[in-house]
């Protein structure tokens, strides 16, 4: 069956879902496509989950501008939609006199980016605020508005809002080619059949250069940069209050230690250029180098258990900035090269892409019934989880039946996720919606039960 639409957005990561959500505010018929069976399964799902201020972006760059705007938008959107966020603040820690000497220029850089709240911090204050910080810190900078966010709920919220407003979500629909249809539309060949549309927005992340070439582009090539990360047990959470950042180099922001909204501690990422766009494997040398860095930054981490190790791929290109453009002649827009700042900038990227589309000739008539942010199931640790919510349990005892003990996920939450507007296609999707099986035992206690619950809800076979 052929699907016809005004706009097809290719890629349901955090950028594609944000664009779909923004376009859903206009009288347009949109379809959101992804090769995977869920939203947010590429770069969006495996990253450091930091909500950046953009203080360290390159001044004057599009990234700097969109980060600043995007983070403001996302803080308020997260509050409205129930996306777990915490404004932990960050401390940039200099470990050598050379690094300390670079701090004033980093502060000046932040001010050029329109962010004036950075503040120099003495070594004594660093240790007063972070008593478990390893020895040898020389000086630091405080970035009070850096925060942490749930990278799974964010694209799910955008997609839920878009779908609620009528956007069709077509999953398992890898785009394999494009042709010009007789009616003047693009015809996308997908794994789920042809999709005919007037406009195409390419937000395909790691595959965005392949899509771009289908539309006669070729101005950039994705060069995946793998980042390995180590997640420590929740018992390590009291070891730090803020995000602990290293002094960045030209190549990477370096290895950081950060709390997560799930109450864990995250260490990473590494930065390795890889050829294979699907290689999300961790490596022995990568994990060893992270643990070594972790021991220096927060020595007590070495005594805590590791809950999870994973790797993500940043969709870097040969360009230092985002690659965002729209072309009215081809009725095509592209948002690529978003690297590691996609979540923070997503809403501003969407705004920017939509304004470019309008300038390129896409007619935008605002809907009178503009969609509102959805109310997402809260899976953070800081707020009130169902298992601690007496009223909720009294109203529905399923919220008092804890199935996943490590993450304290209840039967009620699993049931809700399976019955939600965007139900998971596999166990991995259920994990991202509820945190189930993500804890210290990695399924020793609950995996068998959760698998049965998933299977009995009539969905497809289990994955991770």
């Amino acid at each position, binding site marked *: 069956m052929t699907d016809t639409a005004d706009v097809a957005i290719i890629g349901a990561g955090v950028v594609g879902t944000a664009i779909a959500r923004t376009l859903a505010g206009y009288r347009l018929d949109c379809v959101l496509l992804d090769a995977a069976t869920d939203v947010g399964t590429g770069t969006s799902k495996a990253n450091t989950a930091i909500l950046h201020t953009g203080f360290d972006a390159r001044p004057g760059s599009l990234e700097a501008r969109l980060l600043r705007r995007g983070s403001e938008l996302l803080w308020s959107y997260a509050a409205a939609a129930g996306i777990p966020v915490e404004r932990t603040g960050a401390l940039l820690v200099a470990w050598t006199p050379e690094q300390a000497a670079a701090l004033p220029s980093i502060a000046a850089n932040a001010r050029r980016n329109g962010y004036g709240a950075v503040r120099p911090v003495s070594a004594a204050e660093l240790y007063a605020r972070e008593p478990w910080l390893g020895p040898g810190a020389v000086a630091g900078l405080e970035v009070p508005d850096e925060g942490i966010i749930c990278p799974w709920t964010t694209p799910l919220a955008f997609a839920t809002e878009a779908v609620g407003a009528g956007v069709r979500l077509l999953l398992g629909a890898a785009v394999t080619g494009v042709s010009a249809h007789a009616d003047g539309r693009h015809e996308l060949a997908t794994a789920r059949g042809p999709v005919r549309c007037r406009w195409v927005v390419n937000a395909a992340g790691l595959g965005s250069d392949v899509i771009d070439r289908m539309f006669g582009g070729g101005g950039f090539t994705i060069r995946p940069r793998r980042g390995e990360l180590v997640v420590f047990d929740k018992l390590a959470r009291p070891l730090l209050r803020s995000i602990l950042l290293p002094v960045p180099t030209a190549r990477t922001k370096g290895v950081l230690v950060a709390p997560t909204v799930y109450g864990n501690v995250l260490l990473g990422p590494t930065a390795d250029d890889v050829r294979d766009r699907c290689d999300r494997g961790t490596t022995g040398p*990568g994990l060893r180098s992270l643990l070594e860095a972790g021991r220096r930054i927060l020595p007590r981490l070495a005594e805590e258990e590791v809950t999870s190790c994973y790797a993500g791929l940043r969709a870097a290109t040969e360009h230092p900035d985002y690659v965002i453009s729209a072309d009215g002649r081809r009725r095509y827009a592209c948002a690529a090269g978003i690297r590691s700042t996609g979540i923070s900038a997503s809403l501003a990227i969407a705004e920017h892409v939509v304004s470019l589309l309008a300038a390129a000739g896409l007619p935008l008539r605002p809907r009178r019934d503009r969609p509102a942010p959805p109310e997402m199931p809260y899976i953070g640790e800081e707020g009130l989880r169902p298992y601690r919510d007496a009223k909720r349990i009294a109203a529905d005892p399923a919220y008092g039946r804890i199935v996943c003990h490590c993450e304290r996920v209840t039967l009620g939450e699993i049931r809700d996720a399976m019955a939600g507007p965007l139900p998971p296609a596999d166990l991995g999707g259920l994990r991202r919606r509820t945190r189930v099986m993500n804890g210290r035992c990695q399924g*020793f206690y609950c995996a068998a039960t959760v698998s049965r619950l998933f299977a009995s809800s009539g969905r497809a076979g289990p994955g991770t």
Partner: protein
Amino acid sequence: MKAGEDMHVDVLVVGAGPAGLSAAAELRRLGVRSVLVADREPEPGGIPRHSLHTGYGLRDRRRLLTGPAYAGALAGAAAAAGAQLCPGATVTALAGTVATMTSPGGIESVRASAVLLATGCRERPRPARLVPGDRPPGVMTTGELQQRVYLGGQRLPGRAVVVGAEHVSFSAAMTLAHAGARVVALVTEHERQQSYAAFRLGAALRWRVPVWTSTAIHRVVGRQRLSGVEVADVRTGSVRFVPCDTVVFTGDWIPDHELARAAGLAMDPGTRGPSVDTTLRTSAAGVFAAGNLVHAAETADVAALSGRHAARHIAAALGGAPGSRRLPMRAEPPLRWISPNAIAVGAVPPAPPLGRFVLRSREFRHLARLEVRQDGRPLFRSRPVRLIPNRPVRLGAAWLARVDPAGGPVRVVIGGRLAR
């Protein structure tokens, strides 16, 4: 009981496994009025519930049972003795002897005169062992495997690799065979396997499972589904690929100590459970700990007897017996840990559970003597014993009478080696 009201009990037992259930039955037998056993799983019984093979109950019930039969017998005995079993209830916080509990019935505050933590232990999963590679399904622990196979009836056709070669590893191999898998090998970094001869020979003869020693899991391979593992020879570093459809990480136990740590109990760096003295008292007044939380992992019957031991001292404490001072105790390398790890001193020092201390060694030693010393003074020297990693080493307690209550910590060391 309405939500929001406080519940008062004499003893709250957290965990309805062999230790917790045995303790509850014993507490009631000793005349303790109200004993509440909370367990977060929907059924009482703990780990034996999903361990279908026989071998349970030898030391505590004097007969051999399958895991589920044993779990049922213990739960039945505790209930018959008058303990209140409360499955499906998670103790989420403990402050002193006041617990916060979530269940489908709501959130309750349980005020107890004494608390026994019997939360057991689990196996370290793959990420905690820092095994790199892809993250496909098909990689699990024995705990997950047994629940999938015995409680869920899942079949696991294809080839399987078992990581570890201790007691539980052979148990995992049996479960895999039961589920239709062909076990390619048991893989251990140690130079020898560490299970009991009878068990090992049985497995070797019946299923012809080879044990690859001095071998480490190097990498997990397979993106959508598991295709195999790379194994490395720890002596030469050479790596080879072994195709398989399931990998089971066995053993490498860690106590489920989260509640104990969150409650602020002093922890033992060796066992990683709460530090307990010979009466199984923790560092906090009125809080005791027993079972595999304090020695991960002993067999279920040993855990059960540990629970009974704690029950006797809890009953005594409730009856007004004063708590005694504790003298720290530590096992020195190559010994990994000792449990209990403190000595309750007194005119007649109480013996540890089963009248002995239990230890683990990091290394193989053919014949070694355990020596107990205090302030450089030898208290005891054992007969030569064999040390095998992951296998219990026992140390009698007759020397406790010679401990100087005013002296320094008691150390257990490996004395002169007779032979290797």
